[in-house]
Every structure is written in structure tokens, then in C-alpha cells.
């Protein structure tokens, strides 16, 4: 089920927002970041990623930005994106909600927080 309100980011969108938490990234950078943290999306493929990025852009949660200094000189077709304030806020709200859920789950002994990691 989607989140409590229609604007809640999908799991993939949330992962993208989280990936962008470290700073501007291009598409393949995002894939690398997500695939490095989770296998929840299997092989995250370019079409799927692009579509999700596009939705986030339209929702105003990410925005195009110039390439960071250390990335200049790379493939000029790569478009970098970064979080907007709205994106940061959406990620925060969703992560807080998740955190609450996690806290309850821990309290109810569904999970031991030491398991993760």
C-alpha cells in the first residue's frame, strides 16, 4: 500500500531521495548508491530509474543542477540532480513515519535493532 497520503514517495523514490542526501548525483550514480545499499529493487534498470526521477522532478522534490567540480570533464550527457527543500522535507516525513513504525515493531519484539547492520 502507498503511504497515508497520495504524495508519499514510493519506496524507489524514497531510496532516490536518500541517495541524493549525500549530494548531487547523475542517474548511474544513483543506481550505484541504491544498489550498494539494498537489493530490494534487484537490478535497478535505467528506464525505471528515469521514470521515478522524472516523477520526483515534476513533484519538485529534485532539480537539475550543474555537475559538481570533481565530476566535470565526464560524460557531458549526464544530468546531475539534487534534492530540493520539498524533497528533503518529503524524505524526512517518510523516514520519520518509518522510524515510528520501526520503534513500535521493536517494542513489540518483531525485530531486534541489533539485527540490522
Amino acid at each position: 500500500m502507498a503511504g497515508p497520503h497520495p504524495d508519499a514517495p514510493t519506496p524507489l523514490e524514497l531510496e532516490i531521495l536518500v541517495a541524493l542526501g549525500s549530494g548531487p548525483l547523475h542517474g548511474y550514480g544513483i543506481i550505484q548508491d541504491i544498489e550498494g545499499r539494498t537489493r530490494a529493487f534487484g537490478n535497478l534498470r535505467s528506464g525505471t530509474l528515469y521514470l521515478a526521477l522524472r516523477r520526483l522532478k515534476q513533484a519538485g522534490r529534485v532539480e537539475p543542477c550543474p555537475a559538481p567540480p570533481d565530476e566535470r570533464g565526464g560524460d557531458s550527457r549526464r544530468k546531475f540532480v539534487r534534492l530540493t527543500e520539498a524533497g528533503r522535507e518529503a524524505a524526512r516525513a517518510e523516514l520519520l513515519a518509518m522510524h515510528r513504525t520501526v520503534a513500535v515493531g521493536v517494542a513489540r519484539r518483531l525485530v531486534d535493532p541489533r539485527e540490522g547492520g
Partner: protein
Amino acid sequence: MTPVPDPRRLDAWVLGLALRCWPRSIRAEAEDELRATFEARRGRGGGAMDLVLEGLDVAWAGIRARFSSAGRAPSTPPREDGMMGTTASVVRHGLRGLARSRGWAVLTGGVLAVGVAATAGVFAVVDAVAVRDLPYPAPDRLVRIGAEREGRPGLSTLSGPNVRDVARASRTVASLAAVTPSTMGIAAADGSPELVRGGWVSGEFFATLEVAAAHGRVLGAADDALTAPFTVVLGHALARRLFGDEPAPGRTLAIDGRLATVVGVMGPDFHPPEGVNLGETALWAPLAHAPLPVEERGLAFLDVVGRLAPDATLSTAESELLRIGQGLVETHDLSPRAFAALATRPLRSETVEGTRPVLALLLAAVGLVLAIAALNAANLILLRVLDRVDALRVRMALGASRARVVGESVVESTAVAVLGGGVGLAVASAAVKAVVAARPVDLPRLSEATVDVRTAVVALGLTLAVGAVAGLVPALVAVGEASLARTRRAGSSRGRRARLLRDGVVVLQVAVGLALAGSAALVARSLGERRSVPVGLDPAHLHVATLRIEGIGGEAFRPATLDDLLEGFRARPGVVAAGLGSGSPYVPGGFVGYLEPDGVEVSAEDRMRGRVEFHRTSAEPLALLGIPLLRGRDLAPSDREDTEAVVVVSAATARAWWGDVDPLGRMVVLGGDGTFTPRRVVGVAADPRYRGPATAPEQHVWIPWRQMPAAPLDLRVRTDGAVSPERVIAEGVAGVPGIQVRGVRSVERERAARFVEPTFFTVLFAFFATAALLFAVVGLYSTLAQGVRARRTELGIRMVLGAHRGRLIRGVVIRGAAVTGAGLAVGALLSFAGARLTSSLLFGVRPGDLTAWSAAAGVLLLAALAASGVPAWRAGRTEPVRNLRPEG
């Protein structure tokens, strides 16, 4: 052909294809980014499967984007996408290319249109006549039941008591109905009387067919009893004609002078079964009320249709009926000549028996036409792509993707194919309607023929496939080569391959062309032969009706009465001629005997073998029937009871009985008329060939009816074709007391039914074969001409190098002739194989007829010479340097 592809190229190709799925509005924006990510992902490796999945993911995302908010146009305007276009732009470009070369499009589309029109039209007819199920539930369970006779083919009719016994005894036949067609004189309360073809049917008729009435009810077993009220069910068309839009059930109708109540009307889709001779019947009344000797076991005139029981098969029914039949023969001592065994046949095969081989041949001819059309169209499309290879290369060099170039080619050819196919279907639909309306030949179920959805789908699908494949394959080949960046070298190898392909196509076309053109020539010659045999009679608009004259020798039978009757007919508008005669020409009602010419010895054997057909007739029978008079005179009104007895004989009769002696003026006794009256031969007529031109002419003798008064005569009326013969005849006798007419028959129809002169099919076949020949010639011309055109550069170079002009031209022509010769050889083999098929259609011409075949081969050879000669001459005339310029 394409060597192991560069993996990066393959990646780009897959991505290019997948990108086509993205909506145009956001594709430009998405492309760079997608491409970068895609390449980065692919850069870390992964097999072919991974590539496919990656490509599918991009494609699927594009499709989702079309239907989600992500597909909304971005706020920033899209950049121009340059050479990388979208699907819509591919289509647009393809169609624009088409508009630029309208001549080519019209030629290609036209070829396909003719092919589709011919195929769909003939398929619609064949489908209705031979393939489509009979329009009743579980049609395969319906059978015809009848008696086999000694030495006669087909099934005969049965008598009423025999039908009843079979129905009672059979377990394999669940339901069984006896029917017999009849012409009925009918009149609605306020309408004028008319004659219609109807059927007397037993009470089980509609139940056996399992059909229901559209309004009211059908006849049931309760109606089929003498004690029951006289009821009738009308066909849709007749009900409309009689009662308009008012409901027919409950109305009263006079049938042969008796009042019947209409209880039901069938729907417009109901077709009475032709297999039991009910074709084109318009109303159906209970058999019990028919003025027919239904209870006579010796009189077999009932057609029987049955429905097999659920657990029965045709073979179990067959063996059971055989047993029942044997019982009937033993119990009632039936003659094996009239009743050898009881048998059953599927109703469907009974319906179309006899027309099947002709239809199969027609289908084969039409299949060849379609094959040639498709071949021609594919060839034209192929040549166009090959012609444009250089242009394609330029475009690809400028950055157009392979997919785009191939896509445009496919769009182009598919659009042409669809247009051609659509036009062809429209033509076919109109043509079939016209044929059904004109009914140029008596084919069972022809009236059901339409170009329906199935035909349309099959025909369009076929043309689509031809168009798509013909556009796709050469484009792929061309593009594959173009992308190999070995243009210089590839040029020559492509040329060689294209030439080989072209030669192969020419050989094939000439072969098929020869087979069809030869067949067409054969059929045309056969038609000529057939025409050259005089049929000896003009059946056009000639109708025969049985006269019922009350009280032989009574008032109505007086010659003056009948003379008045004929005079009355001749005065009616629309009547060309009228007369009396025994029977109709094709169903003779006279008797057969022998002659005893005065002074000629006639052996007992001659008498036994005498096959002279005697016709009692009113004056001027030859004039009425359109039989030419060779010598002497026609029978005249002055040949009466009190004048000298005279006859007119046919030429074959004269030859058979007088030999070389001219019979004119000689006396003859008609063997078998019992009077031994000597009669004088006053005329010799040309031979009417009632059995068709293929058999020896029969012997006929015409006798003035007044000089041989006997059984009832038939009325013969020739109209101008503009009036309804039924109406004219009904009105003509309406005022004459004591005379009624029954059963108006068309002599044209009887002739068509009697000897299946395949004129219609012959003409149709000749038409298709001619169309095929035309195709072959056009195809040949375009193929060879384009081949020569493609070699213009080579010719130009050779000319610059000093080759003699005439020699170049000769070389080209010889080359064309050689290819054509190979085609003719293959075609000869093909025709040899097909000769058996055509022989059944031929008359007076052998399948190996040299004239026909050499004519066909000559036409093709001439076409080949023209095809290669004209462009070669043109190439020779232009400036050599101009020929060196590549085409754009």
C-alpha cells in the same frame, strides 16, 4: 550477411528501439540522460540477456510514461530531435516519401488491388457455394435420403408411402421430411394473381432443419393433415411483396384457387435447402394439401431431407437405410430400375456436387493471380528500396538510425499495401453484389455470397504481410550493408546480389505467366471452338409453362380456342413470340421413336435403336425457338387437320435415315405413333444441340399438333426480358375459360441445369488468366527495365571506354532474353503439371495445343524484348557522362 556486430552498436540499436516507446513530448529530454545511464550500466558488463532486459525496461518505462503524470509535457520546450525521430515522425516521413513517388505507389497499389479484388471476389463465391456451412443448426447432421437406381447416377426421389415406411423404421435418422417443389398460382385478397415457386413440405420439414419463423410460427405435424386447416408459411421477400409492412400471419392467401391462412413468415436469412430442390422457393405449404398422388407407392416424386440422430453417424445411417430399403424392395416388389437401394448423402455435398471441380480450378487460377500480384508488388517495393540505397546511406551518414530508415521503408510499403488491398476489397464487394444480382449462372447458394468480414480480414492481412515483409527485408539488407562502412566494395557485391535476385524473380514471373497465359489461350481457343458449334436454339427469355386444358376434346381444347390464346399472347406487351409444344427443349415432353422413310429399308435393329425425338408443336416452331431453317419451310398455320400431313426434320435426322439423299418432299411414316400416316418432309432444320456441343447432335422431328392431337401441350413464350414471364403468362390465360397454366420454367435455366456448359466459368477463368498475363508482362517489364536502369552506370563506363553502342544494347537484350528463356522453360514444366487441371474445361482443344502455347510464349518473349530493349536504347542515347552520376 551482417558480420558479428560490435556490441556497442548492438547496445545503441536496442536502446534506439526501446526509445521509440517513449512519448514524443518527453523523449527528446529523456534521451540523453537515458542514454548516459544506459551506457554506464552496460559498461560494467552483462550478457545478451541483460541487454534485452535493460532494453525492455526502458521500453516499458516509456509506455508507462505515456499513461502516467510523468508523460505530461515538461515546462521547458523540447529540443528539436534532429535525425532521431519518433514513431509519428517515421510514419510522417514514410508517407511523405510515398507522396513524392506517386507513380510507383499507384502501380504497386494497383497491382495489389487487382490481385485482392480477384481473390476476394472469387473466394466469396466459392465460400458461399462450397465451403460455408448450410445455414441451419448442426448442418453436418442433415442428409438427403433417396433411392439409387440401376445404371443411373445420383439419388432419385421417393414415393409417399416409402418415405413413411423409412421414417417409421429408421433409428439413425431422428427426423425426416418429404418435400417437393411446385409452381403455385397465388393471390392475396386484393392483389393480382401471380405464379411463384413454392414447396409442398411434410410437417417435419421445419423441425428437421431446426429453423424457426421470424413472425408467427412454422408448419408442424398438426398442419400436415387433410383434416387440418390449409396453412402456409411465407418467405420474407414474398411476405413483403404481398402484404408490405403489415403483419402477414393471420392473412389469407389463395393458393391454386384454395384459401390458405398464413401462419408464419421466415426471416430474410432463411434459405430453403437447394439439395432437395427447394432452391428459391418462396412459400411452403403442407404436403397433405398438395393436389398430388402422395399415397401412390409407385409414384416417386418426393425429395427427402433428414437429420441424423445424435448417436448416429453417416455410415451407421447408411447401413441401416440399406437394410430398410431391402425390406421395402422385398415387401412391395419394387423395380431395381427405379429403386435399387436406399441411400443417404450429406445434404451439403448434394448441394454443391458437380460444381466443386470447377470451383477448385477457379480457386487455383485466382491463387496464381494473387501470387503474381504479390510477387509483382514485392518486386516493385524491393526495387524501390534497392534504388534508394544510396539515399538511405546518405541519411544514415547524417545520423538517422537504422531503425528509423527501416521503419520508414516499412511504413511506405505497408501503406501502399493497405491502400491497394482496401481498393481491391471495395471492388470485390461491388463485383460480387453485381454477380449475385445478375445471377449469370445457376450456382447453388450463390445468393449467399458476400465479401464478409472474414474475407476482408484474410485479404487485408495477406496484403499487409506482403507489404511489411517486402518493405522490411530489403531495407534491412540495404541498411545492414550501409552500416558496414565498406560502401565502395559493397556497391559491387550488392549489385551482383540484387541482379541475381532480379533474375530469379523474372524467371519465376515468366514461368507463372506462361502457365497462366497458356491456359488462358487454351481456354480462349476452346471457347472459340465451342462457339463455332451452333447451339441451334436461342434460349434467351424463353419460358415454358404446362397447360392444363379441361376435358380433352371439349370446348377449351378446340384449335380455335388455342389459336386465340396464342394470338392473345402475341398481342401482349413484352411478348416476342408464343407457341405450343410438347415439353420444353431441354426437358422434352414428346416421345421417342424411329422413322420409316418411303423407299428406305429400315431394319428391326434400326427400329429398336431409333432415337428420334418427336415434337408436337404449333406453327413456326423453328422461328419461335430460334432454330435456323436449312431447306424447305417451317411448319405453317396452314398445316391443319384437313391438309396434307407434314413434318420438319433436323439435319441429323436426315443424315441418319436418308443418308446422302435429300429428304425434302419425301414421305415418311413416324414409327411409334400408331397411325401409320405418311407425312411429307417439308423442311430441314439445323441441328439444335440440346445435349451440348460436346456430344453428337440428336435427331428431331417437328409435327403440327393439329395433325397429331394427343396429350396436353406446353405453352412457350419468349419475352423481351423486361416483363415478368410469370405475370405475363398468368395474365394471358386469365381470361380463357377451361385453361390453366402451371409451372413456369425458364428454358435458360433448364439449359444451364441440363448440360453444365461452363461458359461463365470459362469466361471467368479466361479473364483471370488474362489479368495474370498482363501482370506477368508488367512485372517482367518493370523488373527488366529497372535492372537495365540500375546498370546504367556500368553501361556508361563501358561506353566511355569505347564500347560500341549497338553492341551494348544487344548485350542487354540478349541477357533479358536469356533470363526469359529460362523462365519459359520452368513455365513449360509448370504447365505440363497443370495440364490435367485445365483439360476438364476444354472443348475441341488438347491441353498440349501448340498454337495456344506458342502464342503465350511469343507474347512473353515480345514483352521481355521490349522490357530490356527500350531502357537499353534509352541508356545508349543519353550522354555517357550523365550515366556516371549516381542516383539520389
